[in-house]
């Protein structure tokens, strides 16, 4: 083992900041990261063992114990549960003969839960040895387990490949992209790869930034920071190098639009990255790809290779002296919080994905402490169209404060889930009509960290100034138990995904969850609802990053918009009400002395 592990470390030049890659490669080799390997890494990189484990134990997909020759990670996000995930989980357990969170005795099959894998439009879905299996049925589960027992290759068990480029020989996945249902006016506009970059190199770097600034393009990841301004700040920061990072770590449950962009239009993304790199004068670009999308990696590498041959990446791009830019893919390893830009940078440096204190901002001191622009997949892809058609054309679409269009991942209780391109300013009602959602109780805008709105709010619109979303749009039907099925799932998600650095985020989430359960158990009082709301406010005030500040949103926004549901949990028809039920407490002892509880 020693030689192999050392070779892997050498491949990354004994560089501590590449610890993620080292761990990923070792896990791929041994199906886990054994203690012996940790010792070798620690020795070679001059770290303590606990320091290596510090990074390792942060990421969901790293494991120190073998997790099965066939490792099933079944999505347990809210929409997955809506679509019958529990039934599928039971089928897996019965067929495999083991329970979730464990491996069969012979080491053949491991069953594990995982947070959203970006397939909410085709749940229940699972990753098996990194290969996505979607729209799972009980019979498919039986077939899969039989296949495992017969030693079949995972890739050979997918059956029919999906639509669009999912059937490309470089992908060959059963995923369906439900390809961009509405041909939108910006992202989906047809064009020829390279055209935008050709226009870009004819103007100065400053002029490119000026154009993006004038377009009013705002970051599509959720925060909505003006992209041009970000580039300008970065350009003005001093450093030895400048980096461009594309955030392809869409982990917000209910979001899957980047999966579709990466599958159907990666050239547009890479071209957008090249344009951004030209503007900020970055030589090195990094695409941080979430672990769940590893099935797209070879394909993306190949697309980049073609673009290098076409002189759209690499040295002297389009023959321009001094315009050198290339991209490498950095894989993640399962951590929602890494979608936060500074956590993503920490992760790229081989550390735990803990968001940084600001200032300094990434544009001042980001990756390797150098000026760094981190933009979302959708933002960078949109830049291409701005360069082609001009900032005024772009600005004319959408609303005054939210220029352009937004890709929405629509999932949940509707007939046509999938990815849609909408102009900013589109009303929730219009989206619901288009996706054929009837009998709607609520819509979760922006995933767990967003807001849960009631039908009275459906005439509000999707925009930064009204209902802001990074892309998720989850329809919740009338027959769902909003608090039990939705809110608890989301809070559990935040408990699991908190980086655990900030004290309130780490602990208050657990406390809020307990209080919610108390209400759900019928032991709550009106005061509990008020306290739940007040304590949730602490999260907003105290935490460092977007995850922590919004982790109480599932509770806060449902108390605001669905308060009667909470009040219905409080028993008011009893004379005296308490979270302590005396009758229940003495029930057992009464049984033995043959008495009936009578404590009044």
């Amino acid at each position, binding site marked *: 083992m020693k030689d192999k592990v050392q070779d892997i470390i050498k491949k990354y030049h004994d560089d501590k900041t590449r610890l993620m890659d080292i761990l990923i490669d070792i896990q791929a080799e041994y199906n886990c990261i054994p203690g012996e390997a940790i010792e070798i890494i620690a020795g070679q990189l001059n770290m303590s*063992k606990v320091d290596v484990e510090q990074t390792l134990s942060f990421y969901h997909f790293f494991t120190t114990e073998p997790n099965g020759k066939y490792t099933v990670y079944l999505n347990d996000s809210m929409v997955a549960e809506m679509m019958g995930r529990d039934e599928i989980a039971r089928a897996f357990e019965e067929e495999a003969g083991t329970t979730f969170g464990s491996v069969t005795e012979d080491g053949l099959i491991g069953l594990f839960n995982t947070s959203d894998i970006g397939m909410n439009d085709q749940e229940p879905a699972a990753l098996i040895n990194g290969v996505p299996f979607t729209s799972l049925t009980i019979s498919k589960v039986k077939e899969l387990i039989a296949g495992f027992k017969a030693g079949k290759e995972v890739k050979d068990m997918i059956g029919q490949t999906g639509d669009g480029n999912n059937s490309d020989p470089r992908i060959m996945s059963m995923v369906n992209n439900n390809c961009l249902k509405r041909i939108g006016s910006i992202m989906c506009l047809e064009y020829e790869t390279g055209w935008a970059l050709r226009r870009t190199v004819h103007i100065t770097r400053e002029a490119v930034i000026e154009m993006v600034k004038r377009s009013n393009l705002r970051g599509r990841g959720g925060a909505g920071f003006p992209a041009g301004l970000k580039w300008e700040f970065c350009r003005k920061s001093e450093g030895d190098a400048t980096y461009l990072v594309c955030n392809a770590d869409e982990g917000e449950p209910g979001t899957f639009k980047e999966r579709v962009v990466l599958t159907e239009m990666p050239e547009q993304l890479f071209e957008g990255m090249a344009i951004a790199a030209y503007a900020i004068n970055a030589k090195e670009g990094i695409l941080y790809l979430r672990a769940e999308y590893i099935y797209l990696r070879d394909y993306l590498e190949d697309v980049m290779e073609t673009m290098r041959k076409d002189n759209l990446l690499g040295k002297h791009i389009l023959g321009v002296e001094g315009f050198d830019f290339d991209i490498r893919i950095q894989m993640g390893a399962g951590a929602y919080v890494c979608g936060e830009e500074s956590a993503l940078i920490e992760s790229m440096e081989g550390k735990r994905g803990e968001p940084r204190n600001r200032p300094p901002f990434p544009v001042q001191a980001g990756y390797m402490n150098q000026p760094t622009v981190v933009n979302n997949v959708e933002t960078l892809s949109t830049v291409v169209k701005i360069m082609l058609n001009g900032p005024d054309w772009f600005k004319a679409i959408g609303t005054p404060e939210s220029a352009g269009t937004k890709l929405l991942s629509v999932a949940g209780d509707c007939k046509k889930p999938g990815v849609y391109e909408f102009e900013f300013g589109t009303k929730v009602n219009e989206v619901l009509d288009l996706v054929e959602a009837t009998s709607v109780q609520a819509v979760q805008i922006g995933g767990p960290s967003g807001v849960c709105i009631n039908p009275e709010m459906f005439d509000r619109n999707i925009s930064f100034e009204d209902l802001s979303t990074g892309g998720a749009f989850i329809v919740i039907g009338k027959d769902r138990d909003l608090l039990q099925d939705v809110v608890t799932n989301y809070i559990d998600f935040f408990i699991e995904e908190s980086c655990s650095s900030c*004290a309130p985020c780490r602990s208050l989430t657990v406390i809020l969850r307990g209080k919610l359960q108390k209400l759900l158990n019928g032991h709550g009082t009106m005061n509990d609802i008020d306290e739940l709301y007040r304590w949730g406010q602490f999260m907003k005030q105290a935490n460092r990053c977007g995850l922590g500040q919004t982790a109480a949103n599932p509770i806060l926004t449902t108390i605001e918009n669905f308060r009667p549901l909470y009040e219905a949990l409080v028993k008011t028809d009893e004379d005296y009400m308490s979270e302590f039920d005396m009758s229940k407490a003495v029930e057992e002892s009464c049984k033995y002395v043959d008495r009936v509880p009578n404590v009044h």
Partner: protein
Amino acid sequence: MNDKIKIVIDGKEYWTEHGKTILDAAKDNGVFIPSLCHVEGVKTAGSCRICNVKVNGRNMTACSTPVAEGMTIVNNHPELEELRKAIVEVMFVAGNHFCPACEKSGNCELQALGYRFLMLVPRFPYEFPDKGVNAESKYIYHDRNRCILCKRCVRTVMKDDKHVFALNSRGGEHIHIKIDTELASHLTEEEAQAAMDICPVGAILKKERGYYNPIGERKFDKQPIGSEIENK
């Protein structure tokens, strides 16, 4: 003297210098901003969140935010007081803090802040964690249930240029600090004592040390925490 800048804390003007954090600038001027994770001269963690102040109306941690000319800071404010007290309470319920019997009692910063914020009974239910103890190394007794995850030890306790303590896992009941017992076994008695001293609570104890100062002579027996700054 060109580096001198003026800042405003709770309506009063103070002089300080560029490059300082709000926390240090306040301290120099006799203004106490409570904090737990901060260690002077060590890379900021900003993880306990107790030093939250309002900067131009926004909540920021004083330990991580550099001062700027004309910055307006609110430190004494009912909302902040409430928030800080709530965080202290969160820390009390998230661990097993049996103050009367703890070796650090009287010298513990968490306990001292509890007194300073007039905490009686925490409003939150106790979690009673079971994260275990580690007594495998020669001089150190590590009780994870008394840990508040301030990361002071993670950032400061080194042996042979390697970290003796590190975070492990994440989320809910899983997150904890792990001690490298092999490395910790090489710590000298003095280094082990320094590790105990850097810990604001009773999570890192030096073996065979026990109760050192008699009651009445402990660090926070005579004056509440922060007085040393305010009475300067």
